[in-house]
């Protein structure tokens, strides 16, 4: 695998309303990780703990959907700074498990989590300015910004992620991805 640009591909990753399982899956490509670091440099990613974008990126990999205002902010930043934006995993694509709350009013959710919950010492709905605001439902990423590709799975299989990165770096679209690695579970 080589990069045609003559430089490394800059990749940003993040987990919004996700569990970091998709990130784990990317680490699950075994020895191919050595090849990966030869051609890819991470920027704004938990992999190298860069918190802010310091340059424009070629590829953005987004795990998780949007459940609060901060997810929306980060997702919009990703759209702004990444040439190709990919929704990775069921949560980013369909809302996933967090979307099981869709249809339940926010007030009831707060009530259940912070007041009725038996494990709580005091019931109090957090209300700090610093906290991001909960959205009325989970939004899949492509309902908030334009998304260029989708890699389903919970998590997406490591082979799928590897194949997808190879396709993108070769300048091809994900429409060509082989379905044998695609699973929704």
């Amino acid at each position, binding site marked *: 695998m080589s990069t045609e640009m003559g430089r490394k591909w800059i990749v940003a990753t993040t987990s919004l309303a996700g569990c970091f399982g998709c990130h784990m899956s990317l680490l699950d490509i075994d020895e191919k990780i050595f090849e990966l670091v030869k051609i890819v440099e991470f920027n704004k990613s938990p992999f190298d703990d860069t918190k802010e974008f310091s340059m424009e990126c070629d590829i953005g990999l987004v795990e998780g959907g949007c459940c609060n*205002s901060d997810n*929306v902010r980060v997702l919009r930043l990703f759209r702004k700074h990444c040439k190709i934006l990919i929704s990775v995993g069921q949560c980013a694509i369909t809302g996933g498990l967090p979307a099981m709350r869709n249809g339940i*009013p*926010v*007030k009831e959710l707060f009530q259940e989590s912070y007041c009725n919950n038996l494990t709580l010492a005091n019931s109090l709905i957090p209300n700090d300015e610093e906290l991001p*605001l*909960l*959205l*009325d*439902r989970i*939004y899949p990423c492509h*309902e*908030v*910004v*334009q998304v260029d590709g989708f890699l389903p799975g919970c998590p997406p299989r490591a082979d799928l992620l590897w194949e997808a990165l190879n396709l993108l770096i070769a300048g091809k679209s994900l429409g060509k991805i082989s379905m044998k690695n695609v699973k929704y579970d």
Partner: protein
Amino acid sequence: MISPEMRLQIAEIVTQYHFEQTELLAVLSAVQKKWRFISADMIAVIAEEMDLPVVHVEGTASFYHFFSTQHAGKYTVYINQSATAEMAGLKEIIYAFESELGITIGDNSSDNQIGLRTTSCIGMADQEPAILINGTVFTSITPSRVSELVAGMKSNSLVRDLVRIPLEAQKCYPTLHTEVRNNIRLKGPVFFCDYIPGIALKKAMELGSLDVIEWIKKSGLRGRGGAGFPTGQKWASCLASESDQRFVICNGDEGEPGTFKDRVLLTELPEMIFEGMTLAGYSVEAKEGILYLRAEYSYLREHLEVLLESMRSRHLLGRRILGTRFSFDIRIKEGAGAYICGEESALIESAEGKRGQPRNRPPFPVTSGYLRRPTVVNNPETLGCALRIILNGPEWFRSLGTPASAGVKLLSIAGDCRMPGIYEIEWGKTIREILDLCGADRTLAVQIGGPSGTCISEKEFDRRICYSDLSTGGAFTVFSRDRDLLSIVHNYMKFFRDESCGFCVPCRAGNVLLVKALEKIMSGNGTLTDLDKIQELGIMVKKTSRCGLGQTSPHPLLSTLNSFSEIYRDIVRKDVDYLSQFNLESAVEDS
């Protein structure tokens, strides 16, 4: 739990309908009427008494709009929300009801005295806004009339006493107690001219069954409900199907928004329609006829029953008709609020006391229809035409209209024109000629054949009403240049979404998605890509749906995207190909 007394009363109702499973709708209607709701417990009792599976009764009860599990109010007000009602001031009427009663649509007043609901087109497009109160129609409603009606309901008046009958109607229809006007604007040679009962039937019997069918074939008569299937061929196929029993059904489930001609026919010329049914019965060797009457027209029920009785006493119906060996009788079955029952196989299911879901075809009703017997299902207007063909001959009928579209068509004209009402025209008239007739000017668009038909713009006003150009079941709705066409399309699409039976995927989900997609466009967040997506989805729903409803439901969108593309192009953003409908402010509102 249910009281022993109630159980007994339900059993009485079931007995009244002879424990017939095909009378389930009538039983449910009677229960709904008496108690104002049908609870799960009541359903269980009905199932037990009628020896039906509980899920069958529950399935049927929950299918129809006019049955409810919750109390619907001692007086249930159904406000018609069709596009023509919207044009005639629906908003003000809803506001008037809501503020008079202090409740919103869908609720009951606290004492369950009055329930407020909306409903799909009730066939009064020429006298909107119109409403139903416990099955009685009130038309041309104004906010001050709303106050009167509310006062009447609050003081426990009989609904009957709230009706204001126009003077001219009182004399003509002693058996009718309604404020519905007929608005016959243009009379023609088939319907609104001399009619003497019995002559056509006598002549048919002289001709013999095969010659009658031959005459109908020769006349070129095609179904007037909208699909345009050749009537003679339908009758011939039914007669050719081996069976011990055959049926004739008159499809009085006129639900296409904007049409009301069957209402007028059943008010003015029911005897002609019944004789037409008898004539069809004679031709296909059927002994039983059913008039399936939509629930919205139940105010005509008594009027029609009295007439049927009179026809029996005159030997035009019943045993040994006109002294011959031919026997035929007609009974009326009422619907309970479902547009889909206008589709002939859904109508048959409904008449059998089931959910009004269309059947898979083949087999067609002519070979396997009501109770799986060969059945002819015809529109009232078709039956009337057939009768006139027997009276005047097929050549005479062919001389009317155009070579490919013989005879006349009843148009239900409504919307922005000075003379809404019924027009009996010969096939082949141009849209422009008809617009002149009904006094429409500054016309932006005409919806031909209702929402499932075509919406045309001024450029196409020289097109003709005929099977080969603009085929129609009769609705002709005019929109002036002051109208917002997108909101009309929106109304129509919501209609299909709500009236889909839900049986097949594309119609069930596709229509919801089409409404959503249109709402995105209307919110200003649409792009040209979104328009392409609507087109693609619309065609998908059309191609893959199971019956005529889904096969035509995308028409309001597809047809206006074609004729009025500029309206859509004006409202979408052309500089981007993706726009999100996501709004952070409204999404965090509850947080």
